[in-house]
């Protein structure tokens, strides 16, 4: 089962496939965990059952997403060793501790308090339950911080030395963690996760508003989601711009690939809106260009110099086609998100946020936009990093395990079958849960679950009278 490909290509496909599936779950659950914390806090503060109902509604969806994130994440933590053992051996002393800290400070925190957050409200009382929900949310953010730090180090390595065997060793942990691209990448990634959740929540709210515009829960989630869209999208565009400038400084070849520039422009590079980059011909075909705009965006000067791919030897260049298109998909979706946010502000001002059917349809269509944008952005940065795993220092081809192509091919096929089966079913169940109307009644057949896993007779904290709508709290 090699499909005529080398072990290296198969291992890269396997990594891309497994991490793509993995990434969409945390991208959603990072935002959802924070959303749940906000909903629970609002319920405790205002004692409005609508917030409790929303918390319970999204909690079930979060539990499934988080579960899929956990099991697909365990795969990632072992794949470095199975498929990229030379990388693990050579860079493990630097990158391993970052992941070790992720496990120690984030994974255990999330997993330890998840049970209480999901099933424990009546056992521990409102205060400790809120603490558990917040701990899960904080855990997801800590996790995102460490893993983007590790990833950023591979893009912009710093604070390291290389010993006689060619192994990386740490010299300055502060420089390693806060490597040059880390602050930008971390902010960009976390905001992307928030936007992913915002547009998913907004789409669910819109879907239910299209059916019943008086549904209060749907109104609340739609309104909250649209505030996020209106406020966070401009922030994200700003951070994205700064991230791009940082990349131009540290990985100019990646920028050249993203922009489809083969030639260096010293008197102002055009912005190529569309084209088809061709690495063989070293030319972007059918280019539609706006003069000088490329330099203006990247260097904030009309005549700023933008280097083209021809400045690097062929074997040191990233392939241009994928970053070129995925970058445009990401930016295009970002602009659509921005437009949706503006539209919602306009609708809010005109007081038709909950009755504007066209806005609801647009928000529904935008539901998956965050997931697509996150993946597109990820492909842009990771393919643009090629042909290196540790940028400029260690090549992807030199990172591979001494594995045979058939072994990698067979495991790749197994991963593809299992992931489509399992996560396909999971996404189906998620969509079915999102289709449930967020109402006050608690007679949803599918609302049952491994709730409040039982134990001893509830203590005093759990014996307080069940509030209206509270009995569905599980």
């Amino acid at each position: 089962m090699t499909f005529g490909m080398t072990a290296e290509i198969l291992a890269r496909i396997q990594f891309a496939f497994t991490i793509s599936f993995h990434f969409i779950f945390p991208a959603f659950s990072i935002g959802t965990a924070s959303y749940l914390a906000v909903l629970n806090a609002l319920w405790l503060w205002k004692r409005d059952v609508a917030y409790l109902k929303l918390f319970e509604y999204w909690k079930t969806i979060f539990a499934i997403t988080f579960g899929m994130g956990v099991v697909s994440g365990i795969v990632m933590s072992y794949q470095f060793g199975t498929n990229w053992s030379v990388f693990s051996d050579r860079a493990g002393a630097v990158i391993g501790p970052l992941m070790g800290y992720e496990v120690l400070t984030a994974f255990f925190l999330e997993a330890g308090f998840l049970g209480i957050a999901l099933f424990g409200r009546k056992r521990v009382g409102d205060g400790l339950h809120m603490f558990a929900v917040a701990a899960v949310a904080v855990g997801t953010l800590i996790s995102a911080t460490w893993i983007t730090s590790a990833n950023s180090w591979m893009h912009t390595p710093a604070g390291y030395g290389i010993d006689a065997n060619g192994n990386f060793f740490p010299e300055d942990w502060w420089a390693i963690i806060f490597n040059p691209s880390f602050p930008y990448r971390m902010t960009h990634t976390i905001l992307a996760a928030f936007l992913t959740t915002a547009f998913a929540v907004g789409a669910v709210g819109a879907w239910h508003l299209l059916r019943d515009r008086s549904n209060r829960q749907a109104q609340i989630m739609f309104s909250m989601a649209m505030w996020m869209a209106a406020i966070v999208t401009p922030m994200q565009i700003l951070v994205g711009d700064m991230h791009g400038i940082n990349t131009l400084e540290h990985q100019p070849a990646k920028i050249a690939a993203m922009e489809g520039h083969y030639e260096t422009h010293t008197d102002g590079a055009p912005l190529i809106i569309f084209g088809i980059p061709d690495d063989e011909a070293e030319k972007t075909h059918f280019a539609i260009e706006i003069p000088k705009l490329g330099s203006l965006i990247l260097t904030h000067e009309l005549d700023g110099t933008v280097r083209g791919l021809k400045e690097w030897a062929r074997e040191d260049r990233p392939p241009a086609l994928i970053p070129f298109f995925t970058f445009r998909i990401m930016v295009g979706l970002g602009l659509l998100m921005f437009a949706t946010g503006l539209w919602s502000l306009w609708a809010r001002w005109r007081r038709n946020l909950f009755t504007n059917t066209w806005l609801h349809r647009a928000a529904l269509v935008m539901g998956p936009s965050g997931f697509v944008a996150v993946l597109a952005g990820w492909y842009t940065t990771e393919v643009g990093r090629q042909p290196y795993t540790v940028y400029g220092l260690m090549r992807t081809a030199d990172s591979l395990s001494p594995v045979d192509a058939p072994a990698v091919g067979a495991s790749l096929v197994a991963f593809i079958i299992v992931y489509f089966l399992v996560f396909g079913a999971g996404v189906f169940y998620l969509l079915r849960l999102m289709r449930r109307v967020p109402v006050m009644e608690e007679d949803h057949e599918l609302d049952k679950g491994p709730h409040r896993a039982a134990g001893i007779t509830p203590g005093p904290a759990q014996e307080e009278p069940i509030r209206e709508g509270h009995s569905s709290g599980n």
Partner: protein
Amino acid sequence: MAIDLPTIWAAIIAFAVLAYVVLDGFDLGVGILFPFFPQRHERDLMTNSIAPVWDGNETWLVLGGGGLMAVFPVVYATVLPALYMPIIVMLLALIFRGVAFEFRWRTQRASHYWDYGFWIGSTLAGFMQGIALGALVEGIEIADRQYVGGWWDWLSPFSILTGVAVVIGYALLGACWLNLKTLGDIQQRARRIAMITGVLMLGLIGAVSLWSPFINQVYFERWFSWPTAFFSAFVPLLLAVCAVALWHGLTTDKHLQPFLAALGLFVLSFVGLGISFYPYIVPGSLTIEEAAAPDSSLMFLLVGAAVMIPTILAYTAYAYWVFRGKMDPEEGYH
């Protein structure tokens, strides 16, 4: 035995692996026992008893893997390719097992398929972990910091034996957990299963113990020569104590004692392995010293581990405390 950073880290990694084995051991064991509890309400009770804690239990596996990459990168980079297929199969099995907790509630028509997934996933994960252990005990071929053996080296009569032993051991832990968490008919059956798997487990521990000294001369010397023979004599003695405690607890309606005794069996078997391995981390190929990352890496992560691992143990204990006591059949599904 010098107390230096690599030794401390070997102890921490060993602790993480042991924590994983006993904690995920009992919840994988509950899955392994699914065929003996065919009723829906029984399975609901079983999965509900582990739903709040399984994720935390599995995180120790990530610490074992991630930690290994950080502090013994060459071990991570050689053992995982050597155990390529068992590891991949284990990961896929854990996927089926992990998603089943939620998925089996999200559908009525296909629920029993996810129950199959839960059972097969749990069993296969345990079996592959046992195979990995057996293959490691047999030793893996390493040259120039790379694995140089073949793709089927892990498969041998001995590794199959250890695979079976781990599945039986997990089933014992799972049965003792059910004895602890349930009452009535389920508890009765769990107790019978615990007796049978307990006897099998002791037999398998004996078989593996008698076999392994002949795999590698080092093990033989370790077990039968002074001063380590002093320790290796204690292990069987304490195993016998645990076995008696297990049997006594199961026959006299004790609820916690059998679970603790089964944990004791695992801890002692693990200590036995530790005695066999030391000072190697990959038997016969890599010692703890030569496999360690630079001290700066070990120190950096040790600071975090020294603070975080006690904290983790504290809040994990708290989570178990919150969900303590017997399962209420009325509470779990309504």
